[in-house]
C-alpha cells in the first residue's frame, strides 16, 4: 500500500539555475516526511520531480524501489495535493473525488460509494452533491485530500496545502492530516515553509536552503541539534554571537567574542571552520548575580508579557541585543526595563555552528 521513496544524488537545473543540488534522501514507507525551507529553496521542485511533472537533470528517483525515470504523473503511484488545491469547479464534489476512479474505469455506482466513504473519512458527510464554490476553505481542503486518497496512492505529496487557511483552521487541519496519515498508513511528503507545521506533524524533516538539503532528522533533533547556522536560525529563534573558536576539548570549545570568553558545544564537522555561537532565547537565563558560566552583563530594554512566557530583550555593554524567554510558571517575576542583570546560558545548550550558507 504505502511505498518508500529514495532520491539518489538528484539535481535539477532550470537553464543555468540549479534548483535542486545533489539531493539524497531515503523516505521510509508510511513515514510523514516534511521538506522545510524558505520559498525558492527547491522543495517544490523536489515534489514535482517525485510526482513526475519535472524530470531530474541527473540522479535517480525510486518509488517503492522502482526507478520512475520517464514515467508520466499518471503512471506513478503518487497523488499530489496542490497549493491552490486545483479542485474541478465544474464538477460536483463527489465527481471531484471520484475523478481518479473514473479514469481507472470504475463504474458509476462504485465511484459514488467510494466518494461517500471518503467524505466520511475526511469528516464531510452530505457534501457529495454540492459544488466546489459552495464549500469553505477548510472543506475544500478536505475534498482535495479525499480526491487524492481515492486513487489509493502509495505516496501522498502535499504542496503547502494549509497555507491558504486561517491560523485556527490550519492548526486543526494539522492534527487532521496527521490523523488521516496514521489511519491510512500512506507515506506523506509534505512541503512547507512553516517550521511549526513541519515540527508538529512530521516523523522526519528535511531542511532545505538554496537547493541543498541541509539536515535530515526528526523534529526534536532539528530543533535541539541543528547542524548549521541556517537550520538553527530558520527553525526557531536564536541569539547569534560572532567570535573565534578556540581549541575544542570534550565536545566543548572556547569562543572569543567582544562580550568576553564564552564556551559552547562544537561538532567535529565545525572544527576549523568559521563559526558563530547560537543560543536559543529560552535557554538564556537572566539573573541578578552572574551565572556559573557564559555570563554577560546586560540591561533590560524591552519586556513583553506573552502569557505562557515572558519575552525580554536586553542589550550588552557593546550594544549587542540578546533575547531571553522566561517561562511563566505562575510565580515568574517580570524584569523591569532598565534593570542591570546578567544573561547566561549553559555551554551544553549553546552551539558553535558554521555559517548559514554551506555549499560545496
Amino acid at each position: 500500500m504505502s511505498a518508500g521513496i529514495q532520491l539518489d544524488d538528484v539535481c535539477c537545473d532550470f537553464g543555468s539555475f540549479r534548483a535542486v543540488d545533489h539531493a539524497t534522501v531515503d523516505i521510509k514507507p508510511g513515514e510523514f516526511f516534511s521538506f522545510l525551507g524558505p520559498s525558492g529553496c527547491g522543495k517544490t521542485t523536489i515534489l514535482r520531480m517525485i510526482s513526475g511533472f519535472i524530470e531530474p537533470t541527473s540522479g535517480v528517483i525510486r518509488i517503492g524501489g522502482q526507478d520512475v525515470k520517464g514515467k508520466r504523473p499518471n503512471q506513478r503511484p503518487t497523488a499530489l495535493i496542490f497549493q491552490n488545491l486545483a479542485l474541478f469547479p465544474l464538477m460536483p464534489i463527489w465527481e471531484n473525488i471520484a475523478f481518479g476512479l473514473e479514469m481507472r474505469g470504475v463504474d458509476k455506482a462504485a465511484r459514488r460509494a467510494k466518494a461517500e466513504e471518503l467524505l466520511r473519512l475526511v469528516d464531510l458527510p452530505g457534501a457529495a452533491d454540492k459544488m466546489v464554490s459552495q464549500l469553505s476553505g477548510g472543506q475544500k481542503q478536505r475534498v482535495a485530500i479525499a480526491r487524492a486518497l481515492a486513487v489509493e496512492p502509495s505516496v501522498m505529496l502535499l504542496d503547502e496545502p494549509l497555507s491558504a487557511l486561517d491560523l485556527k483552521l490550519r492548526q486543526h487541519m494539522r492534527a487532521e492530516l496527521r490523523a488521516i496519515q496514521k489511519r491510512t498508513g500512506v507515506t506523506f511528503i509534505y512541503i512547507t515553509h512553516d517550521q511549526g507545521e513541519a515540527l508538529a506533524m512530521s516523523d522526519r524533516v528535511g531542511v532545505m536552503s538554496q537547493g541543498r538539503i541541509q539536515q535530515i532528522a526528526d523534529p526534536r533533533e532539528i530543533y535541539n541539534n541543528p547542524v548549521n547556522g541556517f537550520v538553527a536560525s530558520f527553525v526557531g529563534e536564536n541569539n547569534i554571537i560572532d567570535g573565534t573558536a578556540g581549541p575544542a576539548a570534550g565536545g566543548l570549545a572556547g569562543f572569543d567574542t567582544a562580550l568576553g570568553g564564552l564556551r559552547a558545544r562544537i561538532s567535529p564537522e565545525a572544527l576549523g571552520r568559521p563559526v558563530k555561537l547560537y543560543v536559543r532565547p529560552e535557554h538564556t537565563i537572566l539573573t541578578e548575580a552572574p551565572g556559573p558560566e557564559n555570563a554577560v552583563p546586560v540591561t533590560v530594554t524591552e519586556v513583553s508579557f506573552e502569557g505562557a512566557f515572558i519575552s525580554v530583550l536586553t542589550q550588552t555593554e557593546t550594544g549587542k541585543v540578546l533575547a531571553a524567554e522566561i517561562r511563566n510558571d505562575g510565580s515568574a517575576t517580570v524584569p523591569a526595563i532598565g534593570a542591570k542583570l546578567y544573561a547566561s546560558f549553559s555551554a551544553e545548550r549553546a552551539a558553535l555552528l558554521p555559517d548559514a550558507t554551506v555549499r560545496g
Partner: protein
Amino acid sequence: MLRRYGSGLTLLICLLVAFWLLMLVIVPNITLFEQSFRPYLPVTEIGGPRDVYSLDNFLKVFNGDTQITLFGRSFAIPVHVLTFALTILYSILVTLICFALAYPLAYYMAKIVNPKTLPTLLLLLFIPLWVSEVLRAFAWWIILALKGPLNSLLLFTGVIDKPVRWIVDYNGVVIGLVYTYVLFMLFPIYNAVQSLDTNQIEAAEDLGAPWWKIHLKIVMPHAKPGIASGAVMVFMLSAGSLLVPSILGSTTSQWFTQTIDQWFKDALDWNTASAYALLLLILCTVFVSLAMWLFKVKLSDIAK
C-alpha cells in the same frame, strides 16, 4: 464619461453612437423588414391598390422544385430550400473544421508555447488579415486552380499523378470560408483556455487521466463558452458570406446569400430579396439558439 470628457465631447460621442445605431443599423433593417412584405411593382403602381402587405415574397422559397437523390431515393425539393439547407450544412462543416484547427492551436498558444514567442506567433496569425478579403479569396482561387501551385507541388512531390480539380462543388467555398473565419474561432477559445488554472490540468494528469480525457473532461468544459462563441461567429459569418462563395464557388455550388444577391441585382426585385435576407437572419438565429440549447450554453456565457 461626462466628468472625464466634458459636456461637448460627451454629447458628440453620444450623437455619433446614436447616428451609427439609428441610421446604419436600425433604419436599414426596418426598411428591409417593411419592404419584404410588399410586392414588387412597377414604379407607377407603388402606393396603389395592389401595394398591400402579404407573405407572398417569403413563400417564393417554395417555388420551383428540383430533384435530389438522398440515400438512393429521389426527392422533389424547392430549389431555394435546397440552397438554404446546403448553406446551413456547409456552414456547419466550416464551423467543425475551424474548431478542429483552432482548438489544438489555441491550447498550444495558451498552455504550451513559451510566453516569449507568443507575440511572434500572434503576429504571424494576424499578418494575413492585413490583406483584403477579396485578395485572399482570389489568392486561394489561384492556389486551387487546375494548373495552380497546389497541384504543381503535389505533382512534383509525387503525391498525385494527374492534376486534381479542387474547385468542384462546395470544396472551394469551404476552404475559403475556413481560411477567412478560422481566427474568429481561435481567439475566443484561446481566451477561454488561457483562463484555465494549469494546476487543474496537472491535477487531472496526476489522478491518472490520459491526455485526451484531460481535454474532454477538464479543458473543453472550461472552454465551452469560448468554443460556443467562436462557433456562433464562424457559423453566422459563413452562412452570411457572399464574397467567398462568389469567388471560390463552382458551377454546382450556390450559397443562399448568392440567391439573395440575384434577387437584388439580377431580378431587381428588392422586395423578395429583402424577404430572403430576413429569412436567412431569422432561420440562422433560430438554428443557433437551438444549437445553444442543445449544448446547454447560455447567452451570458458567450457574452463573457
